[in-house]
């Protein structure tokens, strides 16, 4: 792309130089581009196809100890220069105000270009072929049972390109292809309606679609939706709870992961801000956030130009690390390992999880369940949220089962759990020996949406509140 007479790389370099000349102690210019295509199938009809291109430049500076950020998608050199002026003017305008001083760790410059390779470029597959494949996937769920009322399959391919240049001399460029396929099924019997959902998503080319097994995807969503018609609302109260790897993934992301984000830690918004080196969980709990694993939260460089490394957060119950940006590493005395990402050019990089998971223990699922006289087993994640400053979380599962004497019994629907993070983690009493990270999705924070994944082994928690109608 050319901005006026300049190629993109030259433009970013020019902006950073000008930023430093204008008095910035740190200047970062970031180009973002996203090319997306979307197919929507509903009840056997591929009723819409869309595509779009987002692109622009965001500039971030530190001037007089305050951050200024500005962005534009008006693609002219004049417009980007104006953005630099706005960022500098913004930082100056608040520099007299009492508040949070901007501070970052020094970084060695890195110059690298990363292109994630794909086996099958989506551009080499015709739109007609993609539509045909989505219709096949959808048909399996629609024809599963007469109780299936509505079926939806959506396909999204995204090619994003991010170029970060900063005043350390770093210039990294990363091009990332992604594919996401979602299947949603609504079942109906009389006035009772339920739904089932499956998703696939990763840093990948069209080969991801070719590996979708219908039985484990759209057929499974239909089966869940239909079986939930006969499920009961859950009981209410405090129970021993066993979670599957998806609910465990949702739990580790919501209940603990957000609390470990360095910006929330230095900002006084985390329940574990004063707990470094202390015991925050049962000995059975080890937590990792790892952007190097090839899952939906995978990347090589974060959006500050820091190379991604695995982050150990909790080791056998002891808090050993936070997720860092350049700023949180400076303020909390840590090392940036690549956790700062921005949704697009209109947003500043903030600290985000990547692929977050509870590490495996040494029990079988049967052993995790066997001591439970009465409890609730939760499966499939729907949504969750957390108030990090209070450490109170909510996780909604797709379905559940009552546990009686170590066996799964009555099928349950619309089950959610709530708890206080530190109490819940201290009450982990069993962990199975196999981790599954397979819940590709988007995480929202401060108005920004970001690709993440999460997982866990099967885990048992004592004393968890289950909300229900009974």
């Amino acid at each position, binding site marked *: 792309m050319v901005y006026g007479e300049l190629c993109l790389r030259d433009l970013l370099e020019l902006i950073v130089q000008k930023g430093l000349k204008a008095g910035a102690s740190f200047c970062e210019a970031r180009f973002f581009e996203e090319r997306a295509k979307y197919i929507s199938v509903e009840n056997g*009809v*591929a*009723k*819409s*196809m*869309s*595509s779009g291109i987002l692109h622009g430049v965001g500039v971030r500076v530190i001037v007089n100890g*305050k*951050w200024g*950020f500005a*962005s*534009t*998608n*008006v*693609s002219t050199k004049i417009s980007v220069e*104006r953005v630099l002026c*706005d*960022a500098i003017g913004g*930082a100056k*305008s*608040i520099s007299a*105000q*009492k*508040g*949070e001083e*901007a501070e970052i760790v020094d970084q060695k410059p890195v110059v690298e270009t990363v292109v994630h390779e794909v086996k099958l470029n989506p551009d080499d597959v015709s*739109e*007609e072929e993609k*539509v045909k494949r989505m219709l096949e996937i959808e048909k399996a769920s629609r024809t599963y049972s007469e109780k299936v*009322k509505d079926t939806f399959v959506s396909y999204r391919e995204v090619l994003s390109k991010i170029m970060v240049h900063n005043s350390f001399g770093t210039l990294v460029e990363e091009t990332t292809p992604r594919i996401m396929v979602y299947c949603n099924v*609504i079942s109906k019997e009389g*006035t*009772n*309606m*339920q*739904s089932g959902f499956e998703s696939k998503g990763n840093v990948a080319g069209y080969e991801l679609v070719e590996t979708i097994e219908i039985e484990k995807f759209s057929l499974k969503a239909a089966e869940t939706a239909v079986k939930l018609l006969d499920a009961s609302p859950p009981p*209410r*109260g*405090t129970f021993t709870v066993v979670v599957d790897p998806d609910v465990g993934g949702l739990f580790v992301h919501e209940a603990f992961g957000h609390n470990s984000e360095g910006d929330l830690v230095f*900002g*006084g*918004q985390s329940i574990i801000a004063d707990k470094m080196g202390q015991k925050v969980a049962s000995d059975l709990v080890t937590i990792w956030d790892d952007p190097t694993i090839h899952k939906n939260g995978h990347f090589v460089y974060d959006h500050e130009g820091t190379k991604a490394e695995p982050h150990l957060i909790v080791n056998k119950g002891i808090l050993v690390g936070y997720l860092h940006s350049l700023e949180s590493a400076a303020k909390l005395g840590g090392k940036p390992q690549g956790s700062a990402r921005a949704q697009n050019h*209109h947003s500043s990089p903030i600290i985000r999880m990547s692929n977050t998971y509870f590490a495996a223990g040494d029990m079988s699922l049967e052993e995790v369940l066997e001591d439970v006289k009465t409890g609730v087993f939760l499966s499939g994640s729907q*949504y969750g949220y957390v*108030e990090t*400053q209070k*450490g*109170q979380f*909510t996780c*909604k599962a797709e379905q559940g089962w009552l546990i009686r004497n170590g066996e799964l019994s009555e099928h349950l629907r*619309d*089950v959610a759990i*709530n*708890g*206080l993070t530190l109490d819940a983690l201290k009450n982990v009493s069993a962990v199975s020996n196999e981790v599954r990270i397979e819940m590709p999705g988007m995480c929202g924070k401060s108005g920004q949406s970001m690709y993440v994944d999460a997982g866990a082994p099967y885990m048992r928690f004592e004393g968890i*509140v*289950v*909300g*229900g*109608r009974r």
Partner: protein
Amino acid sequence: MKNMEEIDIRSPVEKAAKMLSKMNLDFFDVYAAYSRSLSIEVLGKGIKEAVSRTDLGLGVRAYKNKGLGVAYSQSLKTEDIETTVRKAVSFATVAQPDPHFKGMPGPSKAPKVEGLCDPEVASLSLDDAGKLVKNMIEAVENVRKGAMYAGGLGAGHMKGFLVTSTGVSVEAEKTSVSAAIVPTYKEGDDIGSSSEYDYAISLKEIDFEKIGKQAAEKAIEQFGSERVESGILPIILTPESSSSLVFSLLGAISGESVVKGRTYASGCLGKQIAPQFFSVVDDGTIPGAISSGAFDGEGVPRRRVVAIEKGVVKTFLHNYYSAGILGVEPTGHAVRGGYGGHVGAGPTNVQVEHGDSTLDEMVAETKTGILATNMIFTPNTVSGEFSSTIDEGFLIKNGEKKHPVKNLMVGGHMLELFRDIELVSKEGRTIGKGYFFPNIKLKQIKLAGK
């Protein structure tokens, strides 16, 4: 905010429409939007970052044989518009006929809605925005020092232009401003944290000092939270919680999902779902109100609609597509999600009719119950069942507000909640000159706690 650079969005839209009109389509629309926004971000000890953004884009929706092709671009250069148009048209030919699609609305006349653009917001500088945020934080500290913060201020100025193949040509301009602050205090391991916010079209509608003072007072009240027993108790929802109850119902009676029988409220049209004293009006024509406009996202005039009248669901909230399925007139509730091309349906300014009780009376007459001061009802929209956390609330004992609660959930079915509305207060909260939510007392709710 520096005033907007003069960028012409009319000519690119007209250029695209001219191209599309020669492409033998069933229908098309073209929408472009241009906005400037600024924000002051607050984190930790106070003001952290000053932000400004310029956004611009154009989207095309093209229907060919009832198949929809959509394309959008963030560049309004002639060659990029041409590419966008060609892409939308080629996708429309690959997409399959949507049997429910009945077309697009034609042109209508509607009176101008006054007061949707505040020059003070349009010309707000980051300097002045920073001072307003400083006042908000000082108001917190005047109540009690030592908090850590999250929150900030956002202000925006937006212009949009829509043209359709059916003759709609609508321009809109609007400003908005929002403020929020979350102070968190600590006393040993005990935490007192809460939030306060407001949003409006005009700067003068927002009282930054009041937001700060109330946030601090609410945060301090949260110290000493305790768990409570599971049970079935009355619950009083303050406007911060009753708004979520009402929004979730209006979402469930909006657009395509409800008319295709996919929400728990699909069978509720014409039915009594709440007591006679419960009514909800949606009015997108209130001058100066945050969700007002002369036209909706498809160019249909906005209007005042009584959605729930004396407890009966009188109408669903329609865009042209959902109205077409039921064979009724659209109600002016099309929501266009920017220039990305998606058009849905949803409420505008929502006003719950006030009752004749007061919050004090509701609390005083409750022997044992819960006062929910902040909670979000997050139902399964298909089944209507919910299982949600009371994010902030208090136990009521013998007619008095006692300690704050924690680790407490409620569960049930959304329609049970509307059936169990017992009292609605006279007083309530007005937001953005358009929304009004009173306190609502429900006869009972199922609690999951200790």
